[in-house]
């Protein structure tokens, strides 16, 4: 179980992932060795899975991002697995999510420009197995993106 100190540490790290160990210990009000033990415990229990660099695809020339909301043909029992497997082979697919709701699956697709997107859509998306319906949402702007948890 997590206590207040664990939550405080995670809150601080979430807000500023670049804080050094000593600074983090200082802000959390603990000694560096106590902090290290806590972090070790949080990692061991799987609460803290790691720290990852976030890539800005726009800075790499991928100007277009589209959310494809997909419903699948449910008459095939393996439809979802097979579609997901095929989607993993498309390099421009950066996220695969499955849902309970009106939509079964969502793919986040990036492309250099609209012509490139068209090409991915025609050659790789429309040829995915068991597609029933696709709806596209074009990303205009990210207003909030930290994806923080309200700890």
């Amino acid at each position, binding site marked *: 179980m997590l206590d207040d100190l664990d939550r405080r540490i995670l809150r601080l790290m979430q807000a500023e992932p670049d804080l050094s160990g000593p600074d983090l210990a200082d802000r959390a009000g603990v000694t560096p060795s106590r902090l290290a033990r806590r972090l070790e415990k949080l990692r061991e229990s799987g609460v803290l899975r790691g720290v990852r660099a976030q890539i800005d695809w726009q800075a790499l020339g991928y100007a277009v991002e589209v959310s494809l909301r997909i419903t699948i043909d449910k008459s095939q029992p393996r439809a979802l697995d097979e579609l997901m497997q095929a989607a993993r082979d498309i390099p421009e697919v950066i996220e695969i999510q499955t849902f309970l709701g009106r939509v079964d699956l969502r793919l986040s697709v990036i492309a250099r420009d609209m012509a490139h997107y068209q090409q991915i859509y025609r050659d790789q998306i429309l040829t995915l197995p068991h597609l029933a319906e696709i709806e596209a949402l074009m990303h205009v702007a990210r207003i909030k993106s930290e994806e*923080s948890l309200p700890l």
Partner: protein
Amino acid sequence: MMPLDDTDRAILRALARDATQSAGALGRRLGLSQPATWRRIKRLQDAGVIKARKLDLDADKLGFGVTVFLGVKLATKGRVSLEDFERAVTAIPEVQTVEHVLGLYDYRLRVVARDIADFERVLRRRIMTLPGAGDVEANVLLTEERRPGPL
């Protein structure tokens, strides 16, 4: 736009998995010196390709059992209402991401909650009362995969 070579791509892939590794350790695996690795990381950061480091937490283990994606359509449009909506929605702690999209919906929100009852509370008290919020569609997240992308 920044052109990448194979070494840059290897560095990005490695840091996207684990951003805590030192330039020295990363360089050893890639057959680069510590200073050469550091310079490349610095260049990727300066170009905005690595935009931030992000804590990867297990939401489930922290007591957030439900993630819901909401498609929100604004009832009334116009510049003022967009800004009002964005300001208000960004301030909700349970709303992890806000994306402005074109298509069936105007905004796509990622909302985290402890359970379905907690989600209903957030939806009724916080989301439905947002200025300008109209139609809302909810899809409950079942699984999620982040893919490495075209590197």
